[in-house]
């Protein structure tokens, strides 16, 4: 008899009412609370700092006296001081060839923050600038620029598609219909946003940890154009109604995917040759993850598109395998590689344990590869394949625990930095979601939780928890940590702060509304209610999803602007370069 082993354990007095006591459901609720707790934690840390600041201000009597004196200054005195200050500033600007300190009234402080501003307090600025070659900088900016574009475009589409649940009559154009736009959203954020961001940051990590330049920047550019062309053409095709057969993330037809695959192959050899000619003997753990994720994804694409075994349900077997490996072997593996470099480098200390990283690497490969079929539990696919998928989904606890422990232990002792840094909250959210999202995914693969949640909107919540909570937050963390260092431009901190909070609150609203709605939907199906009731009950949850989605989208526009601020070239710089050129030619 095929009976869920989970159910056998708990046969005693079970009715459909106590679904809440299922271990998977309890586990998920606990996990959601971990995330909420995290939000509260970061918020309280911030608040604490601010309250401290206020207290200090009120207690500081000398400061009050000073203030009194300032108020009592008469107009003449004030004018005099201001003029002196102005002269001091001007003198400093003029003297590009600083020979002597100009005026003592110039002062040290250029920016004065208002301590009474209740919303934003100043964080430590990233002081170190890192010198890298112009070519490397250019390639990184290219990739990250494309990524930012695809993020804004892809989430605009996502937001539009999400609103269609609330207002299905929004438009009547075939090119904008739900069925066609949904894959545009998913493929754009997959192959456009996350992939471009990963490869761009990958260039930096590979180059730094190998202590040499990237093997060929020309090849990097070839790969860049191939992959972006693939996303662009693929999206046009999708909107025109040409797709590969509807399998998720496999919607681009093979000629379009071939472009992307060639881009991957070029990138792999480019990275591989860089690592092969490294100037240090050890291969840093990040490069294990990055090289492996590239080679695995190449294999995956070939298997996913090779037609010989895909007529009939063979296609479904491959679909489960492909869809899960796309997430696990490409995005998750590559991103972990990036975090193994950027997290320690941001904290300015080594990773907690190298061996744990190695353990996470091999278990990631062994367990993740085998769990694809958990998307088709109770389907006509072979029962043994479903069981393997469920068992190894539970096995995923090992790489996830190994990875999370490593990151937490690396961060331990640096918690106080959170309130002072604008990069660390992104890392912290990403790392917490890595634990929460992955463990929740494993719970969802159990047969009872699958029974309750599969086919409902809960899946959508899960995929945003992982692709957004983990991958996207970690990408942002890496980008904010590295771009100011290599370009020398920092975005204003209140904009980074608004980006963080809008994205985080938006994600929570998105996630919780779909989780609650999805659960109610599953229960309604189990009760045997008419199907349309499950559509009607989702109405409010879809509205809250759209609200969360809007917050997330607004945060992406702010992020896009921050990115622009970080990479724009200062006019002064170009001017001075021209001047030096002129000087040379003269």
């Amino acid at each position, binding site marked *: 008899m095929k009976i869920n082993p989970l159910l056998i354990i708990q046969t005693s007095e079970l009715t459909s009412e106590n679904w809440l006591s299922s271990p998977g459901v309890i586990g998920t609720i606990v996990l959601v609370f971990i995330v909420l707790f995290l939000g509260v934690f970061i918020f309280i840390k911030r608040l604490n700092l601010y309250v401290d600041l206020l207290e200090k201000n009120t207690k500081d009597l000398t400061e009050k006296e000073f203030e009194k004196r300032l108020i009592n200054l008469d107009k003449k005195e004030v004018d005099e001081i201001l003029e002196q200050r102005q002269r001091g500033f001007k003198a400093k600007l003029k003297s590009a060839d600083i020979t002597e300190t100009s005026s003592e009234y110039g002062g040290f402080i250029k920016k004065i923050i208002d301590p009474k501003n209740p919303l934003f307090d100043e964080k430590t600025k990233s002081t170190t600038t890192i010198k890298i070659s112009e070519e490397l900088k250019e390639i990184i900016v290219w990739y990250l620029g494309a990524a930012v574009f695809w993020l804004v475009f892809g989430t605009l589409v996502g937001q539009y598609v999400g609103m269609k649940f609330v207002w*299905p009559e929004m438009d009547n154009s075939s090119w904008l*219909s739900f069925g066609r736009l949904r894959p545009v959203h998913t493929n754009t954020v997959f192959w456009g946003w996350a992939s471009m961001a990963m490869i761009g940051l990958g260039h930096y990590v590979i180059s730094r940890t190998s202590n040499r330049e990237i093997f060929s920047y020309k090849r990097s550019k070839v790969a860049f154009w191939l992959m972006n062309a693939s996303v662009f053409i693929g999206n046009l095709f999708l909107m025109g109604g040409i797709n590969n*057969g509807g399998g998720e993330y496999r919607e681009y037809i093979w*000629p379009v995917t071939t472009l992307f695959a060639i881009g991957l192959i070029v990138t792999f050899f480019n990275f591989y040759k860089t690592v092969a000619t490294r100037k240090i003997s050890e*291969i840093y753990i990040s490069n294990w993850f990055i090289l492996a994720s590239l080679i695995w994804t190449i294999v995956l694409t070939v298997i996913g598109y090779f037609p010989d075994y*895909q007529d*009939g349900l063979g296609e479904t077997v491959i679909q489960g395998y492909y869809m899960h490996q796309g997430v696990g072997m490409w995005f998750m593996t590559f991103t972990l590689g990036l975090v193994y470099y950027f997290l320690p480098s941001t904290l300015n200390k080594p990773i907690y344990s190298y061996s744990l990283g190695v353990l996470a690497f091999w278990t990631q*490969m062994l367990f993740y590869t085998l769990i694809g079929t958990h998307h088709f539990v109770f*389907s006509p696919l072979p029962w043994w394949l479903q069981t393997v998928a469920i068992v190894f989904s539970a096995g995923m606890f090992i790489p996830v625990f190994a990875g999370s422990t490593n990151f937490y232990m690396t961060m331990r002792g640096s918690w106080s930095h959170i309130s002072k840094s604008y990069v660390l909250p992104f890392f912290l959210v990403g790392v917490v979601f890595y634990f929460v999202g992955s463990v929740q995914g494993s719970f969802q693969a159990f047969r009872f939780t699958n029974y309750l949640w599969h086919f409902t909107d809960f899946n959508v919540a899960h995929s945003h928890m992982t692709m957004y909570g983990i991958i996207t937050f970690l990408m942002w963390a890496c980008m904010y940590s590295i771009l100011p260092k290599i370009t020398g431009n920092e975005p204003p901190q209140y904009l980074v702060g608004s980006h963080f909070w809008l994205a985080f609150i938006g994600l929570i609203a998105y996630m919780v509304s779909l989780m609650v709605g999805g659960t109610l939907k599953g229960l309604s199906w189990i009760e045997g209610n008419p199907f349309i009731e499950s559509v009607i009950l989702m109405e409010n949850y879809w509205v809250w999803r759209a609200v969360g989605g809007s917050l997330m989208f607004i945060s992406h526009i702010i992020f896009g602007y921050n990115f622009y601020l970080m990479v724009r070239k200062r006019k002064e710089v170009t001017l001075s370069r021209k001047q030096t050129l002129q000087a040379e030619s003269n």
Partner: protein
Amino acid sequence: MLSLHKDHQNLVLLAFSVFVVLSIGVAIIPAYQMEEYQPIPGQKDLTVSERKGLGIYISEGCVSCHTQQVRSIEMDKTWGERPSLASDYYYSKQRMDIWRQSPSLLGSERTGPDLTNAGNRQPSDQWHLLHLYNPRLVVEASVMPRYSWLFRQIDTSSVRDDDVTLPRGITKMEGGDVLVAKEDALHLVAYLKSLQQFSFEDPPSTDFIPVLPKEESDNGTSSSSKKSIGASLYQNNCAACHQGTGRGVKGAFPPLAGSLIVNDKNPEMLIKIILMGYDARQEYGVMSPFADKLSDEDIKAIADHERSSWGNSVPKVPIETIIRLRDSISKLQ
């Protein structure tokens, strides 16, 4: 031995080969095995038109909201008589053309209903066309997109004989305009109607797995649950056309609330229509017979529900009437 920390070649080769071996075991071999399945004897291949419809089904992305798999669990009973088998997909899951692979029909989300048995549940052409043109005309709470580009608006005078038109009133056409279904719409409807779960003469004993093990002691259903059985049978079989509110759809499907036939003291006409179908009135669509789909108890439950809801209040139908009418109808044929 392998010195993976220092030898990049060994590291990449090992990661590559283990992944390939695992992939062959967990994906390629099972995929080849799943190809060996044969069709169920008597199962029909898709016609040319149905296959074209399948193409449209894929290119419009219907699979992102509609599943086509009856899972082996109790809640999926609504969608088919038995859990789906690998052979069920024998004809539909084949490579579409050189550019596009075998369609991914099983789906991963059920925002709309499962379509495994859509053709049996909803055999009316007219309903499908109206539903595609604007789902909210026939299902008020639907969030499905409109597929209005599958129709063209022309003048009544230029309608040809073989054109399939939509009723003018409900689609709010003005002047002499009328909506005509394009070829694609007809193919798509042909495909949707072809979605009928193939039933065996001797059903194999694959049972649905209940949510949680049931307690055996629960015997005898109360009258209140009987009433809800009627309501849910009505939802699943009748509400698509006559609506959950019993008000029908003006210009397409007649109302049951206040209907003379439903409220007749003598229920014979009502039962006959349910058993044999109905096509007596020009202004409404054709109703298909339900004699083969519903048992006598089901029909009683539905008729009782109809006769006691939406302001209707007439006595219940005795089961003997239904048995007698069914017998006399089968004798006629």
